[in-house]
């Protein structure tokens, strides 16, 4: 079994007087690739932000490990939600990638040669080499997500945390993203929040559903029975010849209620 890198015990998290997560437990192993799913407002982003230290935990513990020894922190790569970033900020792609090297000590240094080489390497890997000197304002949504993925992994983190990386991107990038993540998974654990439940399951190793609590499911098949036991109300999309949406089984009587739901969308 792979080494454990993060141990989350009875984590309580939220904002001010509102508890969003109640006693969450999760062990993250070095080779994990976990999809985090769950309803909107269920606490997915709160969970990530608490793990990252962006919001303080209200209770419980988060322990980090390196070679089975407890350490105060491990390097974590983070790809925040797309809409949280100012796309018109006057900055070039190279600088965005380079900002991934930022840490307490390196805050004051200039670009070193090894960093420059590593930025080029990452640009190649994420397919943005030609964009390096462009301002981020000129990039498309998919190109920007590549840049932010690059920034997250440039300093070779042990854990990569992605908050909805496949929103605002085209299908082509989505496919490439999973290819890149598969490669990266040999070097780091990956935790990924996603709304795109159709394709995600074939790429991840396990699933965690967050809806105030966390339900961990080893394996990547999510059946309706599992959804029911985990109390995890989500939409499951599948791929077919015609784009379609699968609804829960229903008797003939309540067909109208479903029609009503459809109209809301």
């Amino acid at each position: 079994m792979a080494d454990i890198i993060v141990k989350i015990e009875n984590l309580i998290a939220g904002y001010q007087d509102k508890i969003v997560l109640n006693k969450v437990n999760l062990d993250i192993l070095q080779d994990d690739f976990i999809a985090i799913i769950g309803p909107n407002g269920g606490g997915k982003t709160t969970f990530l932000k608490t793990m990252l230290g962006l919001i303080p935990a209200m209770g419980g513990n988060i322990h980090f490990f390196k070679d089975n020894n407890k350490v105060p922190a491990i390097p974590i790569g983070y790809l925040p939600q797309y809409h949280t970033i100012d796309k018109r900020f006057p900055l070039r792609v190279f600088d965005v990638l380079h900002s991934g090297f930022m840490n307490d000590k390196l805050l004051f240094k200039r670009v070193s040669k090894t960093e420059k080489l590593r930025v080029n390497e990452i640009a190649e890997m994420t397919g943005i080499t030609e964009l390096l000197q462009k301002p981020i304002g000129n990039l498309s949504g998919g190109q920007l997500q590549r840049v932010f993925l690059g920034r997250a992994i440039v300093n070779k983190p042990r854990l990569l945390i992605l908050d909805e990386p496949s929103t605002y991107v085209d299908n082509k990038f989505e496919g490439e993203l999973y290819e890149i993540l598969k490669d990266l998974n040999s070097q780091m654990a990956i935790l990924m929040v996603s709304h795109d439940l159709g394709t995600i399951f074939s790429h991840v190793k396990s699933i965690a559903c967050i809806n105030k609590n966390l339900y961990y499911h080893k394996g990547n098949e999510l059946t309706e029975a599992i959804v029911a036991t985990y109390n995890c109300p989500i939409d499951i999309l599948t791929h077919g010849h015609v784009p379609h949406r699968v609804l829960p089984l229903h008797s003939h009587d309540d067909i109208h209620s479903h029609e009503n739901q459809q109209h809301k969308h």
Partner: protein
Amino acid sequence: MGNIFAYDFLTNAIMASILVSIACGIIGTYIVSKRIVFIAGGITHASFGGIGIGFFMAWNPLLTALGFSVIVAWIIQYLSKKSQIREDSVIATMWSLGMALGILFIYLTPGYTPNLMSYLFGSLLTVSNADLWLMLGITFALFLFFVFFMRAIIFITFDQDFAFTKTKHVNLFNYLLITFTALVIVISIRVVGIILVLSLLTIPQNIANIYFTDFRQIMISSVAISLLGTIGGLAISFALNVPSGATIIITLVVLFILAKLSDSLITLISKKKQLKLN
């Protein structure tokens, strides 16, 4: 205007224009990039409270304004982190509270306060040597801070959340930057006055942004554009014998319109050329 006295106050006016142009070019780029123009507006107007206290206590109003606006800046920075408070409402409250305190203290000040207008609309020609030293000190400190920490400032400003996951110094930088914002605003009040300061922090940056898309380039060209606007405006105001602060702002706005027009013209011509080639 050829006598020695004219030369002396004109030298001070030009020196002040240069120092404030450098300071505003630098901190204005931070303000515009981070989209905190409203915070800058709040600090600017709140500083009037400090000026009022200065008059009332018979101290140097510029010094009391410095202290007062730095405290206001810290309060805004502190409260904006608390998510149960609306940030823009906090700014608006500090904005009007400062103005109200200023008016009240000036009313309570015995005697006549002759140079109130110079704080509202600037008074380049009455800049004293002491004012100049203050401007020099603040501009020099700001310059050093940006030279040494440019990367950190850009990265932290660009994406706070990401920076938080990388370094524990994010808040230290936020407070330092908001402090410099307050200090630069107060020294700029001597040049264009409370009412007009905001334009010195935003117009040069917006002109620069027409031609450049990189933080550092915008910063350097903003300083150059500010220099053009303030020295040019000062010369025009001197020639026409009109108030300098207002003339500087109008000069900058004219520069902005010219830059925008010439840029649109260039785009139009290059579009036509491309169509012809096709």
